[in-house]
């Protein structure tokens, strides 16, 4: 959406995204998909080569795209096993919205238990 606002103002944009699914749904002018954990759009810290290869792919897309909505992917081998990477990008403390949703789910579960005749009084 920021990309759309920038294009409207006369700027050419290219977006690198780990969520090309959303880029396509929203109508992103030029989108380069990359399979990396959140918070690591251009790769591994200190990995100059990986960062540059993603940037160069983005610059090629910017240069070559001829019509709005053009999307392509760049192949990246993430160095961590995916289960580990899935945990590693997440904050040490759950975000406020996640905390709130968990508390609500717990409260609902508790309420359901207290209303269930099978568990009442147990």
């Amino acid at each position: 959406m920021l990309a759309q606002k920038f294009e409207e103002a006369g700027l050419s944009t290219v977006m690198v995204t780990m969520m090309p699914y959303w880029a396509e749904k929203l109508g992103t002018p030029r989108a380069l998909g990359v399979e990396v954990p959140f918070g690591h759009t251009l790769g591994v810290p200190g990995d100059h080569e990986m960062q540059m290869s993603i940037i160069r792919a983005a610059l090629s897309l910017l240069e070559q795209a001829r019509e709005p909505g053009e999307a392509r992917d760049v192949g990246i081998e993430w160095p961590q096993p995916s289960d580990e990477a899935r945990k590693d990008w997440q904050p040490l403390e759950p975000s406020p919205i996640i905390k709130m949703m968990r508390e609500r789910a717990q409260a609902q579960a508790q309420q359901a238990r207290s209303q269930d005749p099978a568990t009442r009084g147990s």
Partner: protein
Amino acid sequence: MPVDSFKYLPRSIAAYYQTLRVERADPIPWTPLSKPLNECRFALVTTAGIYVKDREAPFDAEREKREPMWGDPTYRRILRDAWQDQIGASHLHLNNRDILEDVNIVLPVHRFAELEAQGVIGSLAPTNYSFMGYQPDTNEWRERYGPEVARLMKDEAVDAVLLTPA
């Protein structure tokens, strides 16, 4: 193999995301690239919630803790010569450790300075921008801060923008 957008999301969140409906821009706004890359001035824009310490305030994480359905819609300016140890991060939805080690993974200011020196791009603008990507309501971005940052970039004669949502 195509990129799996949901690979690194917890399953419950991935399932929830896939039920959301969004409105696709029609037509998609479009500005053709007007000159070769080696004549273009670039600016960089991330949503990683970074800021330059002692220069601007962090994003308002305290209000988000009180109001979890709110995310700070403002932006911060990251000058191209910011040093790594000046970078702070206030994004409650990410582990910021790797960004504090190497800002280039979300805002490649040092990589773009290298591309400028190599003559691959014309130049990197003096100012780059950081938003905080948790925005349950994107109205302020659409109506106020997106157009405002676009104007600031135009004032610095920017031609092209690399966006790196985090």
